[in-house]
């Protein structure tokens, strides 16, 4: 069982379920950051990068029970 807290940051937050910026998710067995997007029904195109444990990781990074994952969606450029 892998439980993670997911926070969403940036302009595309509004396209996540309910426009929420925090989700508590559970996965049976091994999971990657990309699986969070599948569970939330959000396209990979909307997420630029993930920050896990204070470090930037790509979407294939494996999740550990208790991780806090920040999904960075695109900022607006200048």
């Amino acid at each position, binding site marked *: 069982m892998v439980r993670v807290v997911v926070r969403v*940051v940036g302009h595309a937050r509004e*396209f996540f379920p309910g426009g929420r910026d925090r989700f508590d998710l559970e996965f049976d067995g091994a999971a990657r950051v990309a699986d969070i997007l599948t569970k939330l029904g959000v396209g990979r*195109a909307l997420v*630029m990068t993930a920050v896990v444990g204070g470090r930037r990781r790509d979407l294939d990074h494996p999740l550990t029970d208790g991780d806090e994952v920040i999904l960075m969606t*695109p*900022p607006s*450029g200048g």
Partner: protein
Amino acid sequence: MASGKLYGYGGRILRVDLGTGAVRTEPTPESLAREYLGGRGFVAKILWDELPVGVEPFSAGNKVVIASGPMAGLFLPGSGKIEMGTKSPATGLYGEGNMGGHLAGELKFAGYDAVIIEGVSPKPCYVFIDDDRVEVRDASKYWGKGCFEAEKMLKEDLGEDFKVATIGPAGENLVVYAVVSHDFGRQVGRTGVGAVLGHMKVKAIAVRGSRGFEVADPAGVLKKGKEMYEACFAKPGFDEWTPYGTAGVTDWVNEICAFPTKNFQTGYYERHKAINGQTLKERICILDKGCTGCPIPCGKYSRFEFSGKTYYVEGPEYETIALMGGNLLLENIEDVAYVNYVADELGLDTISGGSVVAFTLECLEKGVLTPAEVGRELRWGDPEGVAWLLERIARREGIGDVLALGVKKAAERFGKGSERFAMHVKGLEVSGYESRYAPAMMLAYMTADIGAHHNRAWAITYDAAVGQDKTEGKAWKVIELQHIRPLFDALGLCRLQWVEIGFELSHYADMFPLVTGWEYSWEDLLKISERIWNLTRCFNKREKPDFGRVYDLPPLRWMEEPLPSGAGQGRCMPRDKAEKMLDEYYSLRGWDSNGLPTKGKLQELGLGFVLERLKLES
């Protein structure tokens, strides 16, 4: 017009007549403030009211309006934005640019909400504002200097606490995409406001204010301000976003095939990682630099070496990485920073400037121009060649004289099919999003009031969310963004707290009555934004009798040339599809089929006076 006590405002409008050197102040009209708020609202209404119809941008009849807003200069996140507008020499239409820094607040601290600069000065001058003391002063010692050099000199002469805005040689020489520069790295970039000031012979504006201004409920504003900062501090993105600033979006834009590459020939640049936010941060950034009140400073002040010399520049931020990096195939961040520095000191827009250089390189590639005509062998990816061309443009030398007019007019002069790759809408060069695989973003570019600029509606995430091929059903989103985003430009606020870290819009709605004492809801404010949107549309119609749908079409490259590669391969926006998007857009806006506001829409928005003006002149 009645002028009651205005809370949240500096209280006066300053009028500077350069012909006579006379300076007048008038109280800020309450009706103007209530109906148009400030910033872009003041710019639009004053230009509508005061510019003679059909005035030439480079004539004594044009004006520059500089306007702060009721939420600028406050203890709240992102209260540092100022607008400057004029009739644009680039487009012949409504021109307006926005910048951060510290001028918006300082103008109000001196007791002013706006400055209207009119006429032409016989000699180079600068406008000196020190609370009530306002003078038009001789600027001969600063004329000819770069933007940063002139700002530094003025601060040394007047005091470091003066907030200074300058034009550079590009503005002095009427390059139609010349900027107004401020705070060593912020610019009013688009539509050539710097060129109009250059024509007026205004080198700079220097402001110091010590009066402060009053808010309706000081204890409430302080308490709410603290709440707003605490809300920002607690956002998950607060620590993550700042290090890269806007440059942080570079990789993502490449992934969705929207990165301007080689004059918008494609949407993906293989070397994007060498010029992205992470590289900027790791290699050259020395300071996170911010505007008034900002908790997430987007400015990336950098120090770097180029050809054995050390340079300082604020940037490059995303737009410059796009239009001067990918668009010119520059290979590393130092090269992009160098051309950024050159453009900034010369005082020309990195977006339009980057587009003009790319256009020139493609003209050479396709034989529209020869190296002899250009004056030098130029190639993609060569920062020194770029710098050379920018200098020629700023000094109006050789080919630079035509290129100083922008890609639309340059293509008209050069012919030979070059209009097919002149990347502009309405005469304003497209900014940082290749949009053949992003129809909502393309519609945003087509319908922005000043021409192809993204600040009105950054719709590209909507494309990513609902599908990058879908062209129908997107107009509503573009319209929604075109009301929300420019509202910030009328209030004197920065959008990035909301856009980047999810700071809730309701905070601004709660703060507004505490500042002004006016019980406006967020919907009331959005209505004013819609009013301003329709007013600038009518201004364009007034200035160009044939204004309408045909001005809203995308660049020919986007209509005729499918993307040759990448995730968006094969996509483009044929004219009939573009027109269908416009049909949907006009209909939702309450505009007629030619894209002009209907009588009913104008009356609904309190713009009945427009009807009378347009009727009189038609």
